[in-house]
């Protein structure tokens, strides 16, 4: 049942808890349009879109892990420090022990896993609150970074930089576009169509009312429109640039983790633990294992994010990772996650992260200084969550939520405490 509901929702989603997520997609589109006008078309120019993805992929990767941590009812303050210590160790491993770069990436992920296991152990098996464990970790690993790096900046070799500043290669005939990016867009279109057909078939097989044909076609038209737009933009950057490698890593992670959190027992357990850990435990969810996993997973992703940043910066420096935890946490909450846990989606967090990213980028293009940018970002975070809290306390949905209500009409069952929220392909769609 939930599968059908998900498919039904995959355009904008439709449950109550989804209202804010839809609102955020809407906000994202509005912000993009606003800055597109204010910056005379710079915002959606291909070089800017490419830069936007390159600059923010590491924060969005952190947001994936942070969403799972927050859904499980925890928080992780150490991600910036973990990213920094992984970055400096990886840079050192290549500079001092001349580790080849692919091995160095594996090494970095192992560091993340070890650190994650350490934090997961304290959270899950000793029962120290994650806030405290990761606050300690924040100090511990920041100190470790300074200790190991001696506050030096250590450059990394060319090959390694690909994961942070590389692009899809130029292959095939000269079409005026980057062919690989076009192929990627084509594959995405095909996947969307396939999914839609699949959903209609499933519904027919189950003798459910298939959505009216025009809805399907409309939905497909919108999604394909956005994908085509995005891939043309990314493919038409300056020769040598295209969809960034870090963006591909991000998309792959989003798809994989969305599937995991929505469609697998392990993923659903995280929501169960965050919603009501006692009830979850009594229903047979292995509480400790889930907590251990989310903390460990977060550190692995933090290490990956750290490496991508180092690769993009061409060097690991003593300031890496400062303040990243706050960006990631903000993205997750703007994207509709509940502070108490149990509610939130990967795609929502990515949209939340993109709202912040576009805001940041647009203001920078307008030449607004970082001081004012920070003020504006702070207000946006507060407002986004405040509007949601207010609407909930009034017992009604947001304006946008009521707009989308008709979408829910053939979703079966009342959309009450179900923490499940839909729309996993959203970040890719909206990126354009």
């Amino acid at each position: 049942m939930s599968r059908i509901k998900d498919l039904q929702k995959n355009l904008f989603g439709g449950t109550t808890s989804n209202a804010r997520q839809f609102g955020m997609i809407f906000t994202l589109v509005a912000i993009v349009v606003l800055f597109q006008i204010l910056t005379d078309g710079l915002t959606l120019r291909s070089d800017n879109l490419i830069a936007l993805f390159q600059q923010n992929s590491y924060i969005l990767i952190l947001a994936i892990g942070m969403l799972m941590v927050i859904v499980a009812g925890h928080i992780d303050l150490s991600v910036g420090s973990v990213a920094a210590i992984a970055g400096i160790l990886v840079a050192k491993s290549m500079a001092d022990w001349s580790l080849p770069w692919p091995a160095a990436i594996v090494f970095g992920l192992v560091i993340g896993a070890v650190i994650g296991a350490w934090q997961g152990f304290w959270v899950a098996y000793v029962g120290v609150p994650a806030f405290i464990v990761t606050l300690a970790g924040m100090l511990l690993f920041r100190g470790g970074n300074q200790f190991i790096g001696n506050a030096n900046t250590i450059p990394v070799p060319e090959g390694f930089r690909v994961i942070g500043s590389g692009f899809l290669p130029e292959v095939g005939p000269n079409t005026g576009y980057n062919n690989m990016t076009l192929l990627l867009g084509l594959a995405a279109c095909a996947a969307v169509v396939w999914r839609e057909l699949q959903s209609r078939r499933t519904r027919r097989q189950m003798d459910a009312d298939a959505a009216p044909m025009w809805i399907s076609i409309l939905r497909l038209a919108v999604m394909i429109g956005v994908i085509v737009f995005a891939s043309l933009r990314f493919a038409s950057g300056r020769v040598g640039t295209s969809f960034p490698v870090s963006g591909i890593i991000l998309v792959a992670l989003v798809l994989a983790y969305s599937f995991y959190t929505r469609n697998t027992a392990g993923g659903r357990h995280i929501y169960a633990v965050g919603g009501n850990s006692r009830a979850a435990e009594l229903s047979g969810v292995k509480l400790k294992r889930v907590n251990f996993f989310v903390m460990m997973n977060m550190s692995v992703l933090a290490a990956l994010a750290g490496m991508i940043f180092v690769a993009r910066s061409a060097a690991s420096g003593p300031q890496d990772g400062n303040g990243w935890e706050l960006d990631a946490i903000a993205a997750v909450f703007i994207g509709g996650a509940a502070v108490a846990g149990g509610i939130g989606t990967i795609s929502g967090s990515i949209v939340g992260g993109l709202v912040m990213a576009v805001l940041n980028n647009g203001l920078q293009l307008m030449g607004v200084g970082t001081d004012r940018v920070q003020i504006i970002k702070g207000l946006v975070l507060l407002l986004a969550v405040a509007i949601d809290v207010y609407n909930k306390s009034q017992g009604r949905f947001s304006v946008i939520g009521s707009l989308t209500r008709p979408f829910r009409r053939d979703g079966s069952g009342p959309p009450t405490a179900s923490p499940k929220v839909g729309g996993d392909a959203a970040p890719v769609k909206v990126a354009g």
Partner: protein
Amino acid sequence: MRNFLGKSVAIGAIAALALTACGSGRDEESGSSGGDAKGFAANSLIGVALPAKTSENWVLAGDLFSNGLKEAGFTSDVQYAGASTTVADQQAQITAMVTKGAKVIVIGATDAAQLSTQVAAAHQAGVKVIAYDRLITNSPDLDYYVAFDNFKVGQLQGQALLDGMKAKKPNGPYNIELFSGSPDDNNAGVFFNGAMDVLKPEIDKGNVVVGSKQVDVKQTAIQGWKAEGAQARMDQLLTSTYGSKELDGVLSPNDTLGRAIITSIKGANKPIPVVTGQDSEVESVKSIIAGEQYMTINKDTRTLVKQTITMVKSLQAGENPEVNDTKSYNNGSKVVETYLLPPVAVTKANAAEAYANDPKLAPLTK
């Protein structure tokens, strides 16, 4: 019906976006450094990316750039990195400046080794990049570097140390101690080598004696330019070496360390020797006027900014900017064409003259 409305709005928005996408393939021309002798429009955008506003010096530089570029007829975009996420901010700012179509970007790097990707992107977009004050390393795409001559700074410090000691005590041999800056700072070694360029011959002649025999840059370095580090090292030197011997001079690479050294010596109740410095910090200028610290170096931000703007103007006119050093500054990928400004040594004798144009320091010298 509302269903239809909601969707129409969404589609409308997305269609609007899609429309703006149409019609363009990739722009093949994209400048790529072909514009050497062409110049650009006189009201073009000039980007200036500076580190976080942590020192007065950078705030002053930012104001001078804003006003100076405006006076010269350019449109300026002066940005500081944020206080907490400095490197990432600066990277994003430089990228935004390229997107906005800046013709020249002046960068005062927060971390000189973490900007090569952005400098490369700027170069490919045909933007000229000038490194201001700090040399951007490991980048083959950096066009120019403008800074004060740091080797000369060291030489001036070394010379002032000798002159100061001679003025106090006409005949040697003189006992001195050497300090140098943080080992992770490129400039620290340059200052030290400059000073040793002057001091080494005297040490070899026996005219000047390093009491502790610590003459290697590794032994003299103060990690992170930390005042407490210099104070601790001076304390140790005083106990180990100068129980009965007299200390005549201390080579200090900057004002902060110089004042820490003086504090240590005062604490041990010894007469203050000749102590050098650099940066013209307010406290040190006061100290010089009071007769404690012997000298400092004036590297006037005004002249540095003025020189940078002159370079931008030459680029605008399509000329090659004037440089005076084409061999000393290798950033790890190439030798960068550099304009070096001469620093000025300031002692009590010439302080009033040296700071005459400085609204903050001039009153102190009266």
